[in-house]
């Protein structure tokens, strides 16, 4: 694993990792977005045999990050779970018990449609629209900027398009830091990317296999 990259923002220390997470040092919080847990199970239940290995790996990656950073809380910026409850989520619950001291906060995303009792049982605190933790604010889909808070959001699964000489081109998932908001890459590997077009002064970190490369 490549050592996390330090990115300071509004006086806060953010550690970005190629495993698609941000560790916020001051708050001891691990921030992730768009995990889409249960997506393979949802497909399989409908007769589409997507291999479950990808879910297993997503889950293991999250565990590794928790063991590495030892955060006090896990902040999920929406789309934690893909659809209705299925057996794959039972596996998640079992895993949840192994990290009983971890506080999990979910800012509800459009995919998070499970019953509130389910979240209660899994001891996940669900926040409806946005969560303010000054100087930041967390929300799944960004709608407008705040005067003095910097927004963290997910939802679009950002990707960056890279062109070189000889008409070469690449498409990579990325972290995006604009003047007033950050878009997190989708944590789940069973997701596509939507291309973003960053302005010159904004920061973009592309995920290249197992390392991060600052693009601008």
């Amino acid at each position, binding site marked *: 694993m490549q050592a996390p990259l330090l990115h300071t923002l509004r006086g806060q220390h953010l550690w970005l990792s190629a495993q698609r997470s941000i560790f916020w040092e001051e708050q001891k919080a691990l921030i992730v977005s768009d995990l889409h847990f249960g*997506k393979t*199970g*949802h*497909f*399989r*239940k*409908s*007769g*589409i*045999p*997507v*291999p*479950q*290995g*990808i*879910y*297993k*790996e997503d889950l293991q990656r999250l565990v590794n990050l928790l063991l590495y950073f030892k955060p006090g809380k896990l902040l999920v910026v929406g789309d934690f779970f*893909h*659809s209705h409850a*299925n*057996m*794959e989520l*039972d*596996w998640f619950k079992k895993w949840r018990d192994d990290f009983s001291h971890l506080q999990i906060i979910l800012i509800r995303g459009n*995919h998070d449609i499970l019953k509130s009792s389910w979240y209660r049982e899994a001891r996940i605190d669900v926040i409806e629209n946005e969560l303010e933790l000054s100087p930041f604010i967390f929300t799944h889909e960004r709608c407008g900027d705040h005067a003095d808070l910097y927004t963290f959001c997910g939802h679009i699964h950002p990707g960056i398009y*890279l*062109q*070189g*000489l*000889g*008409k*070469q*081109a*690449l498409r*990579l998932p990325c972290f995006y830091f604009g003047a007033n908001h950050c878009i997190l890459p989708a944590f789940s*590997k*069973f*997701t*596509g990317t939507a291309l973003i077009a960053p302005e010159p002064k904004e920061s973009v970190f*592309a995920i*290249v*296999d197992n*390392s991060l*490369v600052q*693009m601008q």
Partner: protein
Amino acid sequence: MKLKSTPGYKVIIQWLSAKEYKPFTYQEEAWQHIIDGRSGLVNAPTGTGKTFSVFLGSLIQFINLHPGNYKTKSKNGLQLIWVTPLRALAKDIGRAMEEVIADLGMQWKVGIRNGDTSMAERQKQKRQMPEVLIITPESLHLLLGQKHHPEVFQTLKLFTVDEWHELIGSKRGVQVELALSRIIGCINAKNTPTAIWGISATIGNLSQAMEVLLFPLRLTGKNEENGVIVRAKLSKKIEIESILPDEIEKYPWAGHLGIKLADKVLPILNQSKTTLIFINTRGMSEMWYQTLLHIAPDLAGTIALHHGSIESELRTWVEEALHEGKLKAVVCTASLDLGVDFRPVETVIQVGSPKGVARFLQRAGRSGHSPDAVSKIYFLPTHSLELIEAAALKSAVEEQFIESREPLLLCYDVLVQYLCTLAVSDGFIPDIIWEEVKSTHCFSEITEEEWQEMLYFITVGGNALQQYDEYKKVEVIDGLYKITGRRIAMRHRLHIGTIVSDAMLKVKFLAGGYVGIIEESFISRLEPGDSFTLAGRQLELVMIKDMTVIVKKSNVKKSIVPSWMGGRLPLSASLGKVLREQFDIAGTSLEAPNHKMKVAIEITVLKPLLQLQATLSQVPKAAELLIEQIETRDGFHLFVYPFEGRLVHEAMAAVLAYRISKITPITFSIAMNDYGFELLSDQPIPVDDSNAYELFSLDNLMEDIQRSVNATEMAKRKFRDIAVIGGLIFQGYPGEHKKTRHLQASAGLLFNVFNEYDPNNVLIRQAFQEVFDQQMEEVRLREMLQRIQHSRIIITYPQRLTPFCFPIKVDSMRENLTSEKLADRVKRMQNQLNSL
């Protein structure tokens, strides 16, 4: 039984002579075989009574069996299945058949079954099957997905596949093979055996085409019996003429449109009653239609546009108007390749390369229908070099050098779909279906192990985390493989078929009124207020709502023309070969001005351009391979010209790029057309006389292909169709749209996931196999390399772009191949951008 002495023959002959018709010899020949209970293939062009060669045979057979009461005997059950690739054909064929039945005073019913058939009609057919069922391959499978389907087929005498040449090389052909195996397999042994007849235009492998179709007959234990080929032997005269630019020097070196020659089309339109103008893509046909109206406004109302994205009512109107001779010209795409004849059509214009001899002949054959009439076809080049193709086509037609349509092998995606289709009917018992599936040509080589894998795939769903899995598709209940989930069954029925198209959206006017359909990928690039062209109309995008594009009329002069996928067919091997011969003639005639060769007019016209090519570089002759190395602002180019067609070039380019990248870490982008390919890099490409033959060597060919990353990229593209056919992707359907939203994943994403986490999956393996068999055309690649090994490799270093390389360079379809680490590449691309 001698045909001419049978009662059925007498009835038919009487009817024919009342209409002042006489049967063709080949028709009588086919009838004789049909009443003898034999199977076979009729080889006849359209418009020569091929329908009657089989249909009347079926009537004769019936009358012979019931000479006393053939007129009154009704409700006989299904006698004849008539498979047709085109829905549009069904109606006309049905009408022709009904006319005969009515004239003879018989009680037979003709039923049509395709996507347009109403629920009520289907129900009626279920209660009482008509004697004749005209059906598409997809609807045939839907029929097999019905409960108690075997009962329907017990009375069947004749299974006919019309236009078999159109089906054989495709997955729809595989569908026909599988359906046949089930039908032959389920007919009770004591009933009269069913005969199989195919009807096909001329292709290079007619006898193989027949063998493939008749393969399932081995289920009846009659494998020794060979089928018969009945040939119409009605040859039609074809006249080919090129439309030549006045000044070849000023005609574009690259392009696909040819609109500059539009003026030259007008006199041709004036001379003939009706002209069909064939354009290779839908987008370009829209532009041609607009241009013709623009340069000849008086044509308004007498010319029309016809392609697959136009609303079907409008298309039907165009077809009827064609029949009635109301139209001066129709700008069309392959949408008018097949179908019934339009008698008023006297002339055909082919714009751009038809890519194959068979297609060119098929299109030429759409003109000149009266007996002894000459089919007249004009070739309009879209760029100057394409004129050589006209010369090649002429010589290929003269030599009757026509392509083969290779049958597909081991299409697991179609098999997965078929097994699920049987599972939604009454369910299936694997041992029985295994025997049937093995009796098809497509799956004759399937192993027991692969078969078990298929069953495992549809019941267990591949790799899973046992205790956390709820995979559900096909269940095994007392040895019966069955789909019980109502929703899964319904979704499966809606997805039966092997034609995969890009997601299409309906286009409607704000005020109401349907315009046509358009690809989602195109429309999603537009903003409201943008204008585009569809069905010859200028439209302005208002909004996209509920899978419908809402538009209003636009008066903007310049609008965007959608570029539909699918227009890029590769050059066939046959055409490639004659093309090389023409270049040989061209090269030789340039070098020896006093030669005595027969030089086609097209080559004479092209002389200034060929002269320039010879000055800057060289014109390669038959036993030569030309390589050009050119440096431009874009980087270092390497152009190679094997004239083998786009697909082989793509594979060859990948192999060559890989082999060069073994010499030094280097990244290429690759471009190709039908004449050659290009490797473009940001560093000099190390190819010279010392290593050229080695780079084109046959050694380790397969290994090198597999190692070139393009195989993965190409497989990814192939996987799209496979994923849809194999049931991994739902294309969404009305009403269910919202419910299935959580089941959407792009084919590219699914490919990545399967390729990484379940690489042995049958569908992934198939994607790679299709790349090697169809995309790479390994056999052709080998032959090409063998040829190159015996050729002289000429490397030139032109100071500027040559007429040969120009069309390739401006082509924008590009692939990448690299031997560098991803991270290194990213860094270097960044540095390059920063230093710009």
